[in-house]
């Protein structure tokens, strides 16, 4: 038997159960929200019926087509757009790349805010020279774009690292070039801003499955395939659609949109509690807009503390959080977002609540945080 034999396979599958035990204390929904129960039910049912090629004329093909059309219709309704403006993509990143680059008139420069997700930055620099639009200390883009211009402008709906909402509608009102909006951080949680020509979202950030992005292209927008096209039913789609996942993403989106009037105020109050507790620790700076922000996310930086050590110590106590500090990044460079805002990049922690994070979990987190910070500072003699 080869080294990839059956015994080894079984052990690997067994590790899924072990991993599932880490649940309470997970506060990194901005990286990925746990699958919404509505998505889980839909996913299992859709795998039974949604396996065929939606373009085929036989019964199973028509079934798959029906499920895909349903998914599109539900997403369109939740986001208040037309169904023919919705395309499912293989990821949020892919939706960003296609959405932004499809709007760019050839030979022109992309202007993007200095706090965009790396997916936007990678797309912009791939296309050629890009220009950055500066942000304020709280991470907000100036509605006048600080005088910067380009052939297409990219601005996020909300910042994925610090939660600050961007003035998309004010920017759109003044703009005479196409506007791309990366709405991955807010889709489902908040209504979409108006004024965009193309917009991207990512299902696993609202509780849908990973591997489903949503690309919206406004009817009448000048959008062209930036990459090779395909012969799917949807002219903007490429590759065989993951029909069950798209339907599950739609089910999760509908549930999240329905629940947000209850979930958002609850999360926002818990975030306020974390903001207040972190600000009480000496030499800790809570960053981002305290009010005009995402409901579920807060970021702070602790002076003299190593970000990786902070994340590791909190993990040891059962709290899963993210960090924008250099030592925790794959690139060994600090977060561009924090850098652009001019705030401390080391000792950084991003907490993002899931839909069922409890007051007890937040209470436990704010109780251990001061001691973790104090211990790490004591280790370096401060």
């Amino acid at each position, binding site marked *: 038997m080869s080294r990839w034999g059956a015994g080894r396979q079984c052990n690997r599958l067994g590790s899924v159960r072990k991993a599932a035990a880490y649940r309470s204390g997970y506060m990194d929904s901005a990286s990925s929200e746990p699958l919404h129960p509505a998505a889980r039910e839909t996913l299992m049912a859709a795998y039974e019926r949604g396996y065929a090629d939606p373009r085929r004329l036989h019964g199973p093909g028509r079934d798959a087509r029906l499920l895909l059309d349903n998914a599109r219709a539900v997403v369109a309704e939740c986001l208040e757009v037309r169904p023919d403006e919705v395309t499912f993509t293989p990821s949020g990143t892919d939706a960003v790349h296609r959405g932004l680059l499809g709007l760019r008139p050839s030979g022109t420069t992309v202007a993007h805010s200095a706090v965009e997700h790396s997916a936007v930055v990678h797309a912009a620099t791939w296309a050629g020279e890009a220009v950055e639009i500066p942000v304020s200390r709280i991470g907000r883009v100036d509605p006048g774009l600080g005088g910067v211009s380009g052939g297409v402008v990219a601005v996020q709906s909300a910042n994925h690292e610090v939660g600050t909402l961007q003035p998309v509608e004010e920017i759109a009102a003044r703009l005479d070039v196409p506007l791309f909006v990366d709405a991955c951080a807010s889709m489902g949680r908040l209504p979409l801003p108006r004024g965009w020509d193309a917009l991207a979202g990512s299902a696993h950030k609202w509780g849908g499955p990973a591997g489903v992005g949503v690309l919206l292209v406004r009817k009448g927008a000048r959008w062209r395939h930036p990459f090779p096209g395909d012969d799917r039913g949807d002219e903007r789609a490429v590759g065989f659609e993951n029909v069950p996942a798209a339907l599950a993403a739609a089910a999760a989106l509908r549930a999240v949109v329905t629940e947000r009037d209850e979930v958002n105020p609850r999360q926002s109050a818990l975030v306020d509690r974390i903001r207040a507790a972190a600000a009480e620790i000496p*030499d800790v*700076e809570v960053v981002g807009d305290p009010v005009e922000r995402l409901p579920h996310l807060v970021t702070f*930086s602790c*002076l*003299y*503390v*190593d970000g990786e050590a902070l994340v590791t110590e909190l993990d040891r106590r059962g709290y899963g959080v993210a960090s924008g*500090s*250099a*030592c925790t990044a794959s690139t060994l*460079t*600090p977060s561009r977002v*924090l*850098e652009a805002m*001019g*705030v*401390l*990049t*080391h*000792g950084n922690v991003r907490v993002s609540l899931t839909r069922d994070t409890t007051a007890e979990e937040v209470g436990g987190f704010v109780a251990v945080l001061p001691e973790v910070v104090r211990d790490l500072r004591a280790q*370096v*003699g*401060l």
Partner: protein
Amino acid sequence: MTPDLELDCRGMLCPLPVIELGKRYAEVPVGGLVAVLADDVAARTDIAAWCRMRGQEYLGEDPEERYLVRRVSP
């Protein structure tokens, strides 16, 4: 400007240059100048942020690529 204290933090990764600054800035009197030599990319943002958070004055980089900090408070 001749610094009263120079901290050579080359080769140190974040947050070590800022830790060094936090530990040693008080060796200069109020009004004194500290220069930090650091090649970690995070130092540019973090030394300025340290000054803001600790109530000290950040003067920017000098021609020798040192970050200059004036001690203006205890």
